[in-house]
């Protein structure tokens, strides 16, 4: 019985490929084409015609070979990593909570999914308005007499450690993780709960030893999507990070739009470096996933 189910599933998989063809063509044309074009621009020794400047082919990358860019790349990767891990953890707990305790309260689910529909730019703006030192919460705290001046409100926006940035991302990405894993958790719970219970496992044990291991590839995949997105996103760090935070997308945008056309290859090279980071992370994760599957574990 199980074998038949598996075979039909595989047939469906190949049939699906045909349906995927338009998307695949789109991907080849635009994604691969765009990547190659970016590579070409980042290695171009001149921009404009007549040329604005002359350099050798590696100049854009040579310009990036300094400690300040390395620091920026580290900070950007670190923030993305932290956001992905936190969003993954909080998302998992929220999804479990929703599945176990409140699967009947639809309104709570809708409320939790609401941030998904809000653009990142707007999310950053809202957060700024409420958490600024002269923002809503600060004013409320002031009027309630909790703080004696607006300056005493904790610095959350444009702070030293990127707290505001991470908060904004979490508010957006936790619902994404929940949306991704909630249906699986719901199904796994209904499938496995009785078996585990009959074997004498508590709910915590079921979750920890049964559900999480089965869910791992999807959950980690979701975190990787968050990581890759956060790595290259511009709006939130542009609005909420302090000036010298060093977010690479913000720096790349400045190079691209502010410092003259002849520096555009540098902007493209910065973005390619980010692409390399997310690509390498993706490869490592795929390798781990394959290893995982080899051990005979899978979701269904």
């Amino acid at each position: 019985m199980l074998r038949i189910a598996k075979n039909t599933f595989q047939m469906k998989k190949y049939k699906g490929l045909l349906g995927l063809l338009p998307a695949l063509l789109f991907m080849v044309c635009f994604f691969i084409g765009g990547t190659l074009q970016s590579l070409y621009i980042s290695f171009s020794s001149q921009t404009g015609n007549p040329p604005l400047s002359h350099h050798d082919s590696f100049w854009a990358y040579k310009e990036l070979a300094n400690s300040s860019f390395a620091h920026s790349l580290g900070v950007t990767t670190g923030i993305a990593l932290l956001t992905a891990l936190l969003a993954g953890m909080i998302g998992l707990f929220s999804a479990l909570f929703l599945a176990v305790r409140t699967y009947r309260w639809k309104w709570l689910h809708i409320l939790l999914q609401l941030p998904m529909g809000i653009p990142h730019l707007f999310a950053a703006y809202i957060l700024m308005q409420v958490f600024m030192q002269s923002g809503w919460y600060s004013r409320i705290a002031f009027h309630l007499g909790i703080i004696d001046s607006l300056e005493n409100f904790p610095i959350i926006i444009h702070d030293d450690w990127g707290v505001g940035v991470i908060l904004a991302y979490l508010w957006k990405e936790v619902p994404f993780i929940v949306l991704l894993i909630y249906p699986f958790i719901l199904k796994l719970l209904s499938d496995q709960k009785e078996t585990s219970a009959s074997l004498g496992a508590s709910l915590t044990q079921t979750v920890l030893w049964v559900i999480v291991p089965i869910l791992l590839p999807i959950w980690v995949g979701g975190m990787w999507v968050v990581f890759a997105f956060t790595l290259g996103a511009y709006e939130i760090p542009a609005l909420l990070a302090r000036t010298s935070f060093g977010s690479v997308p913000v720096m790349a945008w400045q190079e691209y739009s502010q410092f003259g056309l002849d520096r555009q290859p540098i902007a493209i090279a910065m973005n390619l470096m980010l692409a390399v980071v997310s690509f390498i992370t993706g490869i490592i994760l795929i390798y781990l996933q394959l290893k995982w599957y080899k051990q005979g574990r899978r979701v269904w």
Partner: protein
Amino acid sequence: MTVKEVVNKVMIKIKQILIVVMVFIFIISGCSNSSLDVSQKSNKSVLNKDWKRITAQASGTKVNFFMWGGDEGINQYIDEWVAPFLKKQYNIDVKRYPMDTKEFINKLMAEKRAGKKSGEMDVLWINGENFKTAKEQNLLMGPITKVLPNFNQYVNADKADTKYDFGFPTDGYEAPWGKVQFVFAYDSNKITQPPKSMDELMDWVKKNPGKFTYPAPPDFTGSAFIRHVLHEKSKNYNAYLNKYDESLMKNDAKQVWAILNEMKPYLWRDGKSYPQSLSQLEQLYVNGEVWMTMGYDEANASNLMKKGEFPASTKTFVLDKGTLSNTHFLAIPYNAPNPAGALVLINFLLSPSAQLEKMDLKYWGENTSLSVDRLSEKNKKTMDAIDRGPATLSQEVLANHRIPEIGAEYVQWLERGWMDNVANR
């Protein structure tokens, strides 16, 4: 062969492969340039016609005006006042396309690369480095000002602010549309005596920690603020108006960084972070977090007071040694589909009636690019009667405290340097 030669050879090979692959991808994705229109004659010939023929040719056509669209007042001025007038007077439809300057220059560059002879933009609102790029890349039609009757009659073509645009010669490729000047704004309820120089500003900032800041360059306004430091501290500011010389900048920059770093611990948020944009600084000012703001527009504070955003006690000031001012221009791209209509629109925008309407706070409140002494007595009287708002300084004070802008290379050098030498310290 040395290592370098080998590397270069490999690079060339990689580039060739990349080009082949890219061409292949362009072909399969249908991006090839089949719409190339080579039959169209150069539109430059319009510049040799007399004005009557140009207006006749323009009648019944449509003009596409590409301009920055971030200000409601400016947009209304074009849509509600200029467009209906031009329709009535010349039977021309004006269509405004809001787009960032950088963006339409990039678009134009792409069109040029693709060999597109007929584009979609007729008039561009442009200045500074964007004009420099456009002119150097041959993206503009040519010297247009000499055919414009209103330019010849009302604009003093020999003045530096018409001849040069951020230190780059205009050669008539663009016609001056307006002038703006940098001013500081302050809340007179909180500050009685505004500073008159950078040194006085420094004293004030030290005495009132946390109450001053400036937008982080490369923001346009923040970048202009640090140029004022350069202007006051440079021994020979006029040298910046000539050809780019990095050593000149490097010598003065040390002092500029020293002053900005000295100010830093007393700024808003202890200088650990700066507002990212002018609107963010203005919000801090409105919220009372800082007591001073600034802007590259002498009427901006009055405008915001009228809208009820700035407190009514807001006033503006200039430094004794002057504040930066610049001119912004109108140009026609090389591939304008309707150059005759474009010329008529630009000429109209340079007419005294259009310029005086623009000066009124009702729409825009911006200074004229025309020479006041060339205006008729009647126009002069109208101009004197225009209320530019309670916080706007008098024409005289502004005119006596004007300093010219420096070249785009210097501006960019300072913006990049600020990040490394001030923000990241």
